């Protein structure tokens, strides 16, 4: 995939990671004690295995976000942006087109000369074949 498409996909990945991070954190976070005046809530009947995995989740997900951002930076550094902008590119295209025309004409000339020589050789060969056929005496 070309680098600009990779960059675009990386931007989408970062967006998806951000959305998933906040979504799952909001969904799975355990309740927080707001004030010492309120009594402790009753013990939850949910599966405690969820809590064991949950404390790692913010770290893992934020690590994934940071890694995605670093990859984006690496891709941006790898962009082959030539300096000079649009005018320099257009100038180069005009130069290359002129050179292409010259080389094309040279190629055309060589091709025509080669085809002429081929035709000559073919004529001479057919004449030689005819003469050698005529010279051969029937037994």
């Amino acid at each position, binding site marked *: 995939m*070309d680098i*600009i498409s990779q*960059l*675009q996909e990386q*931007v989408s990945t*970062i*967006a998806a990671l*951000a959305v998933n991070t*906040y979504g799952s954190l*909001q969904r799975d976070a355990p309740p927080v004690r707001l004030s010492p005046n309120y009594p402790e809530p009753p013990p939850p009947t949910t599966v405690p295995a969820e809590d064991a995995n949950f404390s790692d989740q913010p770290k893992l997900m934020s690590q994934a*976000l*940071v890694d995605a*951002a670093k990859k*984006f*930076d690496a891709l*941006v*550094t790898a*962009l*082959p*942006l*030539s300096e000079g*902008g*649009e005018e320099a*590119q*257009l100038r*180069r*295209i005009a130069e*290359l*087109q002129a*050179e*292409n025309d010259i*080389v*094309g004409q*040279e*190629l055309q000339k*060589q*091709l025509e*000369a*080669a085809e002429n*020589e081929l035709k000559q*050789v073919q004529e001479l060969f057919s004449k030689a074949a005819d003469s050698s056929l005529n010279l051969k005496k029937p037994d």
Partner: protein
Amino acid sequence: MATSTFPPPPPFYRLYKDYIQDPQSAPEPPPPIQGTYVLFGANYTTDDALPSLEEQGVRQLYPKGPNVDFKKELKSLNRELQLHILELADILVERPSQYARKVEDISLIFKNMHHLLNSLRPHQARATLIHMLELQIQRRKQAVEDIKRRREEAQRILKEALAKLDGQ
């Protein structure tokens, strides 16, 4: 514009009844469309230019001007994006009801990033064209060399054959 589920084909086919005998008796195909046209009720244009952010009603975060330093702007937008995502976490903890503004800021940064990447595409197209022209020039030069070499070889073989025949 009359619409139906299964419209009949356009009636122009009758004009081409004698096309095989006389190609001039039938009308020429219409010229290519220029400008804007309507297709299935939607407006399209033949002039494909990337609309600027202002035209889409989005604030532009990177500096305007003829030459934008894409790498620098993309990196700084990336840094700002990370910062905003972190601040969103903070807001969700401290002032959860004010998330909307921060989410809007984050989506603004994303729109700017995508617009920057889209404006790189014409540059990429020109670079591809340059590369293709260079390849074509190289191939043509190679072909010229090949033809020269073959012609010289053919001349050499003919001279050898001539010398052999003369020596016979």
